[in-house]
Structure formats: C-alpha cells, structure tokens
C-alpha cells in the first residue's frame, strides 16, 4: 500500500473504553425525546409517520446493543415499511369489506354470522403466522453487525404448516403440548437464522419448560373448574359473590403465571441458542423483571383510575350547563376522544421508557458467550434480501421493536 506522497494527514483517534461483557446495553440516550417526537408526528400525520417512527426507534434499540465492542446497526428505513404497508393495503381492502359485512350479519343471524366469523378468524390466524415469519426475516435482513448482515431462510408456507400442526396438537391436548409447540416453532426459526455465514442452532426441548407451563395451566384449569362447579353465571349475577372474587383471583394468578412462563421461556431460548461455536448463555433474573412489570402495571392502573374519575367529574360539570343546542355534548365527546388518545400515547411512551428498555437492558447485560473470538471471523451473508418491509405485521401490530 502506498501512502500519499504529500504529508500524511494524521488525526488522533478518540476511542471509547470497550464494554466488559460480550453483550452490553449501552444506552445511546435521547429515547424519551425520540418517543415524544414519534408520538406527536404520528398523531399530526394521522398515523402515516408511524413507519418512520418505527424505523427511528429500531435504530435506537439496535444501536444501543453492543456485541463484543461493536453495536448492532439497523439499516431498514421508514420508506420500506411504508411500501410494505401499501402492498398490504391491496390484500386488506377487499378482505376488510367482507369482514365488516359479516360483522353486520352477525347481529341478525348469530349462527351463520358466527360461522363466518370463525372462518375469518382462522383466516386471520393463518395471515398472522405468515406475517410474523416475514416480519422476522425482514428485520434480520436489516440487522448489521461489523458490516455483516443477519438473515433468515426457510419458507413461510413450511412455517405455516408447522404452526398449524402444533396448534392443532395443543388444542387436542387441551394446551398441555403448548411448550413443545413453542419450542418447535422457535427451533424452525432459529435453525434458519444466521449472522453472515455463521448459522444459529437451537437445542431446546419442550420437556424442559413443562414445569414452568404446568403451574399457570393448573391455576387456569382450576379456575375453570371452580367456575363450573360454583355455577357462576357472570352475565346475570347482579351482586358479586365470594365465588366471583375467587375466580377473579384465579384469573389474575393465571395471567401472572403466564408472564413468568414467557420470561422463563425467553431465558431458556437464549441459553439453548448457539451461533456456530459461540454458545450463548443468560443469567436473566425473572423475579427482578416481574417486579418491575407488575409495579408499572399497578402504577398505570392507579393513574388511570384517578384520571377517569377526574375526567368524569369534569364532564358532569360540563353536561350540567347545557350551553347551546348540544354544543357541550359534542365538545365533551371530542374532548374525551382527545383525552383517550393522549392518555394511550403517554402510557405507551412510559411503558417503552421504563419497561421495554429495562427488559432489553437486563437481557443484554446478563448474556454471556463462549468462544467470543470466533465472532471475528464471520463472513458476509449471501442470503437474498427482501426488498419491502413488513406491511402486514404493521396492521396486526406484531413485533414491538
């Protein structure tokens, strides 16, 4: 290599201290401002900005995850997501019309309407699986680490067949086979995932998760049995009886158990994944995350109750005045819609800021890797790149990130 004949132009490098673990969450900062900007722009553009908002948010998440000293990079753009959405509109518009018409029909003829609803529900289920698969492939193809691209192979039809088969099996076994179903779909996806030319392998087994699954399962089955034996008709009961509280408690415990299960499953999935010779491990503390999520849930619920009381009080005051011909009612309806939109947006912002970020940070910082130096010898991916974004996934709100 020849140098420039003139004086070499030398500038010192200002290098940051590399993080200690193989994977670290190093917050790039500015998340709160980004979330507020995204929410405001999405609102004033009637939702059109949401594609660019999502891409900007992903650039934040990806860029904050540092693996062996180098951050991930998200190379997707809002434009790609927007085009994926436009393509999806073509499929969705006629389907939406049919869906709306059967919704009307259901009022009149519950049997035929209900049957049509069932068929449409199945159609949606199939569509969602399809979309989940393609969204994951798109996101991986837009993930870069040290200039090398991730990818996902496989076919969405094969994935669909797999999911339908396992869902049927789960249904036949009344849900007991669910962890095996989850493991099977995770294995299909993971075994076809690669970073550059380094292929991932997932070595999980459903039996390892059955204990975590069976506890919420028993609680759920128990509350169903209780519901039947106590003959509680939830629609007609005017006075709440102790039985109702018991069943309600059962449901809450079940939800809690499900949350615990999914966090345990997440940790298990990380622990059983390897990229080539690089085995990933996780020391994720499920209890710590649970405390945070439940705490946030309770706080949000309390705030919601207080806000509702305040809003209702405000409208009682407004409603009593009756200024003009119904003007106050129109105003209060508009005001309540606006209040709802703002409250919902604020809730989402705070959830991402406090909960999502904490979860991602915990997952990253508790991750370990063997044979880290293998990561220096990964070759570029040769997998084809999908050209448009996950339009359908957007409509079903799949993939928080």
């Amino acid at each position, binding site marked *: 290599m020849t140098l420039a004949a003139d004086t070499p132009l030398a500038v010192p490098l200002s290098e940051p201290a590399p993080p200690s673990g193989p994977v670290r969450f190093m917050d790039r900062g500015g998340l709160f401002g980004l979330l507020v900007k995204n929410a405001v722009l999405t609102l004033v553009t009637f939702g059109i900005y949401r594609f660019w908002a999502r891409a900007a948010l992903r650039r934040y998440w990806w860029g904050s995850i540092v693996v062996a000293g*180098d951050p991930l990079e998200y190379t997707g753009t809002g434009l790609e997501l927007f085009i994926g959405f436009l393509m999806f509109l073509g499929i969705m518009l006629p389907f939406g019309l049919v869906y709306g018409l059967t919704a009307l029909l259901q009022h009149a003829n519950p049997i035929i309407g209900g049957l049509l609803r069932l068929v449409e529900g199945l159609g949606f289920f199939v569509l969602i699986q399809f979309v989940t698969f393609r969204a994951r492939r798109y996101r991986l193809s837009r993930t870069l680490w040290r200039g090398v691209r991730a990818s996902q192979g496989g076919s969405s039809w094969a994935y669909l067949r797999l999911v339908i088969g396992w869902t049927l099996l789960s249904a036949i076994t009344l849900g007991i086979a669910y962890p095996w179903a989850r493991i099977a779909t995770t294995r299909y996806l993971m075994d076809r995932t690669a970073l550059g030319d380094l292929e991932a392998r997932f070595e999980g087994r459903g039996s390892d998760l059955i204990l975590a699954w069976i506890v919420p399962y028993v609680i759920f089955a128990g509350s169903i049995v209780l519901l039947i034996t106590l003959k509680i008709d939830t629609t007609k009961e005017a006075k709440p009886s102790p039985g109702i509280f018991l069943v309600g408690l059962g449901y809450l415990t079940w939800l809690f158990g499900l949350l615990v299960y999914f966090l345990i499953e997440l940790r298990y999935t990380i622990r059983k994944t390897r990229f080539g010779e690089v085995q990933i491990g996780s020391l994720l503390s499920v209890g710590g995350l649970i405390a945070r999520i439940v705490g946030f849930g309770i706080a949000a619920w309390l705030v919601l109750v207080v806000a509702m009381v305040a809003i209702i009080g405000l409208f009682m005051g407004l409603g009593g005045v009756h200024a003009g011909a119904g*003007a106050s*009612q129109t105003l209060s309806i508009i005001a309540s819609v606006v209040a709802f939109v703002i409250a919902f947006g604020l809730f989402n912002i705070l959830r991402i800021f406090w909960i999502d970020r904490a979860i991602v940070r915990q997952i990253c910082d508790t991750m370990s890797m063997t044979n880290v130096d293998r990561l220096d010898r990964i070759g570029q991916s040769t997998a084809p790149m999908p050209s448009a974004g996950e339009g359908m996934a957007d409509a079903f709100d799949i993939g928080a990130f």
Partner: protein
Amino acid sequence: MRGRLNDGRTTAVHDVHLTVDPDAGQLRFEPAADGAVRLEPWPLADVRVVERNGQGARLTVGGWEGARLQVGVEARDFLALHCPNLHRRPRARWSGGRVALWCLLAVVGLTGTLFVLLPRVAHQAALVLPASLERQLGASSERGMVSMLTLGGTPIRRCVAPTGQAALDRLGARLATAGGLAEAPRIAVLDSSIVNAFALPGHRVLLFSGLLDRAEGPSAIAGILGHEMGHVAHHDPTEALVRNAGLGLLVGVATGDLFGGSTAGIATLLLTRNAYSREAERAADGFALTTLAAAGIESLPLARFYRRIGREAAASGALVPSLLSTHPDPGDRQARVEREGHDGAPAMDDKDWQALLRICDKQAPDEP
C-alpha cells in the same frame, strides 16, 4: 488519523491509519498492526456518513455492502473537507419511480374502494337485507347512539307522556299512509336540546325534544318526519350503516389500528352524523313534499324552519349539530320547499300539538 474498519466481507476489525490522497481521490487504509491484510481504498466521492454517534461517526462507501468505518470526531470533521458527498443520503433501495407507482396504486385502490366499491356494496346490501335484520340493526344503532350521547355525562332519556306519544303516532301513521310506506315507523322522542332528527334502519325515527321546542308548530314537525320517512323508504339508514362500517374498517387499516378503539369510535361518530349523499337528501325532501301534499298538510312552515335553522347555524359556526349541518345547501332546500310546497291544513289540532310539546313531562330510559 485512525479508524476501525470493517470491510464488509468479514467481521474482522481492522485498526487502520487513514490517509487522504486528494490527487487520486482516495481514502487509504494502512493496518496499524503488523502483518495485516491489504485493504482496498475508498473513493472519496463515495464516502457517506451512516450515522453520527457519541464517538464521532460511522461511515460507509457507496456500492460496497456492509463496509463500515468508525472514526473519531476530529477525523470526521477532517474528512468532511475532502469527501464532497459525505452527508448525502445513501441511495435508497427503492427508486422514486417505484415508490410513486405503489403510492399511486394504493391511492387508486383506496379511492376506488371508498367511492365506487363501498357505496355500491352498501346500496345492494341495504336492498337485500331481510327486514328482521334491519330491525335488529336499527335497535343496535339506536342503542349505540343513546350511549354515545350519554358520554356527555347526563344519560339520555326517552319522552313517553302517553297523550303526546299518541299524537305523534297518529301523525306518523297518517304520513306513512300518505307516503305509501308499508308500515308506520316507530317514532321515539329523546330528551335532548339537540335540534335534530334521525332515521335509523328498521323503520325507526328518532326526534330530539330540542326540535319540538324550536319547530314553532306541528307542520314543520310533519315536514321533518316526512323527510326522515323518505330516508326510511329509500333504505338510506341501512345503506349508511353498511357504508360506515366499511369506512371505519378502512380507517382502521390505514391508521394501523385494525382492532383498536378508534375504528369503533369513528364508526359511531359517523353514525350520528347522518351524512347521506346530496341525492339522497334531495330524494328525501321530495318524498316529504309529496307526502305532505298527499296528506293535505301545509309545507311552508317547513321552509320557515329551514330558514331559521340555517341562519342560526351560519351565525354559530359549524360545531352546533343541527338538521342542516350535514346537509348540503340549506338555502337550496328552503327555496325548493317554498317553490314546490303546497298550502294545506296544519298537521295537528292545537290540543294534539300542546300534548306533543309536553311529551317530555314523563320520561323513561330508552329501550330500543
């Protein structure tokens, strides 16, 4: 000047010295460590910033997938002097033409569905829906409207004073016969200061008591009832309901809120604005005029009522929901009633009218 280079072929990190060769137009890399591989230079004109970050900037080079160079702040600022396209966006994977094509297709599809497909489907659906279904739709939309108006705080109640309701039903039956309707509609008065009336699917008409207070006589009420019965006779409410359900869903798809509350909210909001087409409104006015004539009822009070409400709506702005706010050209309609209207008798005798005015003396929760 140093940087961390990934050449886009492997994940190997090359610690490199950077040299700028302005004559050759190249950014060259010399490995900082001994015995390292040769690294191809980058054309200065193709160097772009991927992202500014805390350490400085991450750069790439055009046409070289995955090539990345992390440099410090000083190197970034220095390179800015030599790389003319540093801050130009990397070329998008989608060309402007293809984007425009997809946007055009989406717009065509959306407008086609909104303005061609949806109205046709709604029109046909309204004609073929069985009467029992229409009745149930009417009951559910009345329930929806009442709960929507109750959102304002005070629950809406139905006015049920028996003599007033009997007078109203007599007028309704008379108009239905005159207009050739198969059955007399179920007319309910709701206690609200809103000056408006609605036709609902399944032969239902809702009057708000505000309308009675402002009508200044029974013949204007008869005219408004005739107008709403025109909508009933033409299946307009059912058609609007089907159209609005489809519209709500389309809005849900477009705003990404498919199963969210906004869809249902917008559908309900649209329901309460009985936004029929201009043609439907004209046809309903025509129905009212012929019906009034056939029943021998004077139609000039309706014209006077339209004029009064039109003036008030203009004075108070569009926010006040009134009979005219969703109806086009109030002046036109008033002129037409004046032009085509007939003289005749008042719609009710004074006793019945006084009873109707006092219909809200007795109230009950609305049970559609």
